Structures are given as C-alpha cells and as structure tokens.
C-alpha cells in the first residue's frame, strides 16, 4: 500500500489543526479516549471543545491556541490510510512548517473566509514553498463559511484570488476548491446541506480522489544509489546505500560519482539476505568489484548515466535568513545529510512569494525567494530537481544556523 501524504498549509488561526482534529473524529480515526482528553482540557482552560487539541499537544499550544511545531496523524478513510501533516502558520515558525511540508505530495491549503482573515501573505508563502517542494496537486479548502452565511459569492471571490495567485507563481498542477466549516464539520466528510450551491465533493472525498490521481508517481528509470557508508563485513568491504531510482541487478556496471570510476556489482544484500536484484526505494549492502573509489556521499549511477553537475549550478531558493554573495567558504549546503562547503554564492534575482514578481537583486531578503548560482568547494553529484528530487534539493546553513532551502534548476 502506498503512503497517502497530505500537508495542511495556511495562515495561523485559519483552521488547519481544526480541520485535522474534526476529520480524525468524524472518520473514527482517534480513540474516544483521546477525544475526551481534548474535551477535558478545553474545559479546564475555559474554552468550548477545541478539536485542534487532538493535534496541538503541547501545553503552550493549547493555552495560546496555536501550533508550534509540525505533527502528523493518520486518518483512515475509504479503507486507506492518509497521513496528515499539520504545520504551524506563524511567520516565525516557517522553519517548522518547512520541516513538515517537505514530505507531502498533495497539499490542502486552509483559507478562512471570515471577514478580516482571507487569502493572506503568509498563506501565499506556504503555497509557494510547497510548490518548490514539488507538491503535485493542491486542494483549496475555504474555511469558516459559517461566518459568511455560506455565501457562494464570497467563496468564489476567494477562489478567484487564489487562481490569480497560482497563475502569478506559475503553478500549473491540478487545483480543486472546497467550501467548508471545519469547526462545525460542514462539508468535511459528508456533503453539507448548508451549501446547496456547491456541486463538488466534500473535503475528505476530494482528498481521496486527488491522491489516487496525483499521489505517488513512479520513480525514474535511471539508476541512482546514494552511498551512506563503506564498512567492513567479515573480510569484505561493503557499501551501504539507498536506491533512489531505477533498479539494480547483479553484475550491473556502475559509475561512481564524483570519482568517475567504473565498477560492477558482485553481491547485493537486501534486508540481510543475498538477492539478485533490488528495486528503487530499498536500502542495500553491496559488494563491488572495486570499492576503493566509493565513499560516504558517493552516488552510484548506471554506467551510462551522468550527474547534471558536480560543482556549479543554478538553484531556486527560499530564504529564511538573508542570502547574499558569499565567497569565503563559510556557509554550506546540506544535501543527503552531507555538508558541502560553498565556494561561491551569487544572487541573480529575487522572487516575491506574495505575487511571483521577479527583479534583479544582490540580496534575497528573509522569507523571500530568488535564483542563485552556487559553486561548491568539493565535487558533489547534483541533479535537476525535476529529474531526481533526492539529488536536486538541499538546505543552506551557516554553521548550525538554517538559512533556507533550494532546488536545483
């Protein structure tokens, strides 16, 4: 069975945790015990029942009514498991939002239709980041329809704003719009009687339909194995690695990058047993004809395959802290958990995540996007993000200080 991952996006207080909380309850995916705990705590702090408390478990989150860090919960629906990823909506918590949103395939953005809330700057940033991460489809859940008397016109107005925005940032994947009231469970699992003008699916059905259509895509055919370590096993040295794409067969010729040398597969161990072949997504242990050029961080390609770059490339970034020209080798990218120092970073332009506008710039300000060129200090195999996501995405750090994320163009 595939994992159906759904990321919730959107501004704080627009109802992400409430959507998940009430979906968990209406689908029977939480025990009554956990619901009554949330009920008890709501009463204790003098609030009406808050379904979001099923997700927001920290005392601070409940008392202050916000999500501090990302969390996940499984919802069982239509005999499938959907893993919902909740993320914080605050600007200062964008780093936690990214940590959650980096693993989703299909996203639901929750936008409050309540007066004074609407389609905000922060919600736009969330959509922008998720689209950089490779989100394949987007469901726009327009929430709090109860505050606007379930008015179709007002709902459509928000939809039009979102459509215009998605055009501005060049998001061309499938999009669906669903009106809901999360707090009162209107149109979450069952079609709502309060919105007879809405002819589409209720939220959970729409998610199910979207995931089965656009969820997991097959991995590309070119062989790529990330080497985690080379260790002694008995008298033989073996390489531990994860097959990112393609499939590996005994005897296959491999090119070791960045060393460039050729070798062949002598033995494949999968889950501890010796096998003849291994598919994408598995962790293998390999005996090779010549392992001397293989090290942690090496990527093993099929003999005919080549990396896109080993040291200089262009990338789209989203900055959490300001990014500008760097030449000192002080900052580094973190890719597949390897720190590779940056010899040269040049900013080409900056892109506004609020309206997609681009301008020439030498600095990318915090919470903004842009295009940079990077030159690495040592060789590291890099791919186009679209061709092999695992080798085409990275984080940028200054020591332990997180500066932002990037995807290779």
């Amino acid at each position, binding site marked *: *069975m*595939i*994992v159906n991952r759904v990321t919730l996006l959107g501004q704080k207080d627009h109802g992400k945790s409430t959507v998940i909380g009430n979906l968990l309850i209406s689908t029977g995916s939480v*025990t*009554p*015990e*956990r619901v009554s705990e949330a009920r008890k*705590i709501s009463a*204790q702090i003098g609030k009406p029942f808050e379904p979001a408390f*099923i*997700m*927001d*478990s*920290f*005392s*601070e989150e409940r008392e202050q009514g916000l999500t*501090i*860090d*990302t*969390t*996940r*919960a*499984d919802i*069982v629906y239509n*005999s*499938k*498991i959907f893993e919902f990823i909740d993320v914080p909506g605050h600007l200062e918590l964008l*780093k*936690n939002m*990214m*940590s959650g949103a*980096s*693993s989703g395939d299909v996203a639901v953005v929750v936008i409050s239709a309540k007066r004074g809330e609407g389609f905000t700057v922060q919600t736009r940033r969330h959509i922008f980041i998720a689209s950089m991460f490779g989100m394949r489809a987007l469901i726009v859940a327009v929430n709090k329809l109860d505050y606007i008397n379930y008015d179709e016109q007002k709902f459509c107005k928000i939809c039009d704003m979102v459509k215009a925005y998605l055009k501005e940032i060049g998001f061309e994947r499938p999009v669906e719009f669903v009106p809901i009231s999360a707090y009162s469970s209107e149109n979450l699992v069952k079609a709502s009687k309060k919105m007879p003008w809405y002819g589409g699916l209720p939220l959970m059905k729409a998610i199910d339909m979207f995931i089965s259509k656009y969820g997991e895509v097959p991995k590309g055919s070119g062989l790529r194995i990330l080497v*985690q*370590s080379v260790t002694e*096993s008995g008298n033989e040295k*073996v390489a*531990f690695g*994860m097959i990112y794409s393609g499939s590996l067969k005994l005897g296959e010729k491999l090119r070791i990058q960045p060393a460039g040398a050729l070798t062949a597969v002598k033995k494949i*161990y999968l*889950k*501890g047993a010796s096998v003849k072949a291994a598919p994408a*997504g*598995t*962790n293998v*242990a390999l005996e090779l004809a010549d392992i001397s050029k293989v090290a*942690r961080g090496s990527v093993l390609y099929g003999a005919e395959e080549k990396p896109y770059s080993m040291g200089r490339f262009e990338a789209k970034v989203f900055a959490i802290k300001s990014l500008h020209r760097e030449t000192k080798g002080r900052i580094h990218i*973190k*890719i*597949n*958990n390897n720190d590779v120092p940056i010899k040269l970073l040049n900013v080409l332009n900056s892109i506004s995540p609020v309206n997609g506008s681009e301008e020439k710039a030498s600095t990318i300000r915090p919470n903004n996007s842009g295009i940079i060129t990077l030159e690495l200090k040592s060789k590291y195999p890099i791919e186009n993000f679209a061709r092999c996501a*695992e080798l085409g*995405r*990275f*984080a940028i750090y200054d*020591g*332990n200080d*997180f500066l932002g*994320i990037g995807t290779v163009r």
Partner: protein
Amino acid sequence: MMEQDLDKLEEKSIFIIREAKEKFGNIAALWSMGKDSTTMLAIARKAFLGKIPFPVIHIDNGIDFPESYKFRYDLAKKWNMDLIVAKSEIRQELSGFSCCGANKTTALKKIMAEYKFNALIVSIRRDEHGIRAKERYFSPRTKDFTWDYKNQPAELWNNYTSKLDTKGHVRIHPILDWNEIDIWNYIRENDVPINPLYYSKNGLRYRSLGCTHCTVALKSNAKTVDQIIKELEVTDTEERSGRQQDKEKEYVMEKLRSLGYM
C-alpha cells in the same frame, strides 16, 4: 487501525539507523524489552547483516517483571548483544512522574556520561502520544537532557541534525512512523521474539510495558500474535492506557520528555 506498508516503514527505519551509526561515532540503543525496541533491534540486525553494531542499554530499576529478565537474558545471548545494564535506584515513595523522571532518567544520564555516548536510539512512535508525534527523527538534547521542543531544528528530507556544538546528545527515532498495529504485523511476519508479558495469562495481558509499579494489565484473551492483532483491529482504547505516567496529571508526558525521559 489499519496497517501501513511494512516494507516502506522498514526501509525508512533501516536508512535512519544506518545514517545514525555512520554520523555518530559513539551511539547506543535503549532496549526496554518491550515490543517496539525489540522490533527496532530486529531491524538493526537486518540493516547490519546480522549483527547489532552498537551497545544496547537496558535501564534496570530492579522491579521489572521476572518474565522480562528471562527474556532479556535469552535474547541478549541469541542476538549476541553488547548489553549494558544501567541500574536505576528505586525509591518506594516515588511513582509516576517522579519515578520515571528521577529514577530512569538519572540512571540513563549516568550511563551516557560514563560511556560518552553522543547519540541514543529510542524506539518511540508518533501514534503513542500527542507529544511524541511532535518529534523529529533526529532530535537534539542538551547536556542535562532537556528537549527544547519550542525551538526544534529544521529537518528537511533526510538532512538530519547530525552535529552538536553542545555537550548533549542526539536522540534517534527510527520507528517514529510506525503504528502499534504495524509493530505487531512486523513481529508476525518476521518471527521477532517477544516478551511473554504481552500474551494473555488468566484473562489479562499487557499492551504496553513499564515496570511492575506503574503498569496495569488489561482484560484480554489474546494468547498469540494473531489474536493480539485481531484484538487491536477493533479496540477503541489507547495503547498506553495502562501506563500511569501518561495520565497522572495533564502534561506529565511533556514535562517528562522535556526533562529527558524517553
């Protein structure tokens, strides 16, 4: 509850365990002798071609069930574990928060300092508790074991926290994605040896194991792994409902974890 794809869960766990072993020179794993940490060790054996490549720590408060001690002895021998028993002091007057907090965590601190471990594999799962659902796969702890949960590091894809400037350690959570039912299905498919306390005796069994002082058995006739799985498929109680430290008072788990509890 429905089961997830066991193959995928296992692959991710293998990746995490191998990554942790490679990134941290001095790593150990906690083993409570419960189903989760035993399953994690079974996965580690597969990842490292039959041998668990790091020491295994059991925090022994001397009041575990006799069945557990026999299980510990047998499996440590069978799997050729490098077992470290961390004796924890038990004071009769303490229970729940003070017991788990003061005794277990203190014993662990002592062992971590003595062996200078900089990483510790802990087999917690997201579905066990709302607080545990907030965890990263690699989660830093300070020198005095505190968890700065309000300011966790970014964790993008497989870019895990693998370096520390402090004298603390990193908690590694390889089975964070697993649910209770997945553990049992894995045990069934892989014949993982399991602590006999999970099986029903005189109409009672344990669903989650702590020590004799704060673990309560539940009514059950499940005497085999198959029967346990059947039981879980229809249950509507929480896995840890027999565990005192989860309820005693609101936020006990949060306090325990921020102070260094597992």
